[in-house]
């Protein structure tokens, strides 16, 4: 396996205008502009091998997208080095573009009023693809992503889930070796999320594709990735196998259940905490190391007829807090080296 991405102490700082609140602040800003420096990425170092499916996760504003934009050559770093497939992204952006693909979940690249197939045609020319090879590639992606039915429908008429699958197809047409996926499942419902995760997995397996996935959905990480890097306030605070993250920080699940009949006031579930109690249902929190989810679901099904049931991961912000807490306890106990002092309050 060869190294396809190598980052060394990558840093990015932005100068952001700072204006005092109110009318007085607005008038003052006319004569003197104050700036403050925001350190979006603070010395990130990492390596990716060919075929890796890496989750790069963190809460909003953690520095995930900024890192991706430096890796794709859109942003120049303030300091540090990066090598992507042998290219320095911000110096050789156009050469690198032939070998990477990117999907930014919140920003469409497909032409909104035209069907996806028109954007595919455009990309065939932009990436200067061989006609016959492009047709074969298109057929493969249509099948792999299951988008055949929507190919000739204007993008504005597609659901978000359908659009995202077409977005991924568009980014894969030129056969990239690395695919950067920035929040691809954002805003999708449970079914669409799962369908998209399946499609991503299939593409990865079929082509030994290296995938760099950012998300703040813990479910994306659990389902797809073997390795996970957690970033917060621009710093890497966790870099390990996903199984380690799961074992240590993804233990908690919240089950929402709605029964077909009213439940008594003293409704309780063994080895679990009732977070919310209603006439017809409840929200239950459990530690999966103490009692597995399947066991609790089975118990609920046996208790009364179930109308609806959901299983949720803890929000990313909570996982980050857990990681900090673990890091703090290590520091207090004096066990092992701690590389940097990580602030607990928000940097901005």
């Amino acid at each position, binding site marked *: 396996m060869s190294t396809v991405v190598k980052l060394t102490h990558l840093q990015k700082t932005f100068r952001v205008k700072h204006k005092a609140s109110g009318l007085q602040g607005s008038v003052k800003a006319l004569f003197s502009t104050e700036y403050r420096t925001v350190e979006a990425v603070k010395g990130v170092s990492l390596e990716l091998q060919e075929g890796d499916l890496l989750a790069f996760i963190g809460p909003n504003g953690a520095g995930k997208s900024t890192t991706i934009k430096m890796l794709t050559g859109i942003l120049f770093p303030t300091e540090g080095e990066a090598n992507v497939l042998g290219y320095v992204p911000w110096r050789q*952006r156009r050469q690198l573009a032939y070998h990477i693909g990117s999907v930014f979940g919140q920003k469409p690249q497909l032409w909104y009023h035209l069907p996806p197939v028109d954007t595919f045609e455009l990309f065939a020319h*932009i990436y200067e693809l061989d006609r016959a090879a492009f047709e074969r590639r298109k057929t493969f992606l249509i099948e792999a992503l299951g988008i055949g039915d929507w190919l000739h429908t204007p993008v504005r008429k597609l659901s978000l889930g359908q659009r995202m699958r077409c977005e991924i197809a568009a980014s894969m047409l030129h*056969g990239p070796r690395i695919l950067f996926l920035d929040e691809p499942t954002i805003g999708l419902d449970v079914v669409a999320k799962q369908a998209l995760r399946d499609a991503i997995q299939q593409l990865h397996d079929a082509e030994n594709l290296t995938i760099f996935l950012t998300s703040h959905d813990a479910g994306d990480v659990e389902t797809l990735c073997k390795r996970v890097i957690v970033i917060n306030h621009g710093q890497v605070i966790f870099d390990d196998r996903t199984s380690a993250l799961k074992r240590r920080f993804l233990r908690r699940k919240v089950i929402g259940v709605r029964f077909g009949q009213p439940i008594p006031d003293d409704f309780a579930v063994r080895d679990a905490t009732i977070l919310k109690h209603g006439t017809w249902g409840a929200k239950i929190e459990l530690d999966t190391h103490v009692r597995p989810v399947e066991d609790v679901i089975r118990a609920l099904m046996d208790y009364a007829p179930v109308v609806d049931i959901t299983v949720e991961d803890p929000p990313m912000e909570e996982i980050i807090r857990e990681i900090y807490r673990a890091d703090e306890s290590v520091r207090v106990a004096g066990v092992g080296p701690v590389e940097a002092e990580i602030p607990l309050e928000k940097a901005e």
Partner: protein
Amino acid sequence: MTTTTLAAPDRGTTRAQVRKYSAIARINVQNSLAYAWDALGQGVFVTLFIFVFAQLWKTTFKAQNVPDGGTIAGLTLVQTLWYFVWAELIQISKANVAYTIQEEVRDGSLAYTLGRPYNYLLYHFFSGQGGVIIRMVFILAFGSAVALLAVGPLNTFRPETVPALLLITALAFVLDFCMMAMIGLTAFFFEDTAAFRLIYSKINFVIGGLLLPVDFLPDAVQSVARVLPFNLILYAPAKQFVAWDSTQFLEQIGLQIVWITILAGLLALFFRYGTRRVSINGG
């Protein structure tokens, strides 16, 4: 399947580049057709404009006691009205690339448009021109219809000058693109380009020939207007359309080429500098 196996045999050649930028222009034509009602709306807007101009200039020529077929600053009433048809045709059809770049920076879609294997500025040039063609068709049709009804046909028009007129008009679009793209790139530093766009549009309005043909301006203002590049965008093509002058045409084409060379050079430098400074919103 990797990029190597997918690459066209002529990747990197001029032919492949021509195909690339033609495809960019083509998809914009397709997109404009999806917005055909918008282009039609602009055509209707021009109808109103030319109608108002017709009334205004009929009154002006009458107030100046200009006899039928007489001129003001070398232009007859018919020529004046048809001048505005061509000037408005360029003004309304031209792509607002400054706004497009600004929005890319604001909504973060620059992450896509900047990260593709093409020249970013050429991408915007061909994107913009794709939409221009459709708008021109509608505006010319509506504008000509009103001018015909209001003052009759343009008898001074010489059909053999059409290729030259198309050339001077095309270069006017290139020149305008250079200026608009320069304004757009300021979004890499300031995010909002509204003030620069407003200044540029007002300059075009006053000394560029949109409010009045440059010949109608006071001598002092005319001398300033004629050395600046703005009159080469609206005034020069519109004036040639109504009053062909081959000597003036060659001079104007020469000036257009000089200004395009200077501005394109500056634009390339500005782009190189701007990409180091860019910060993208969202995420």
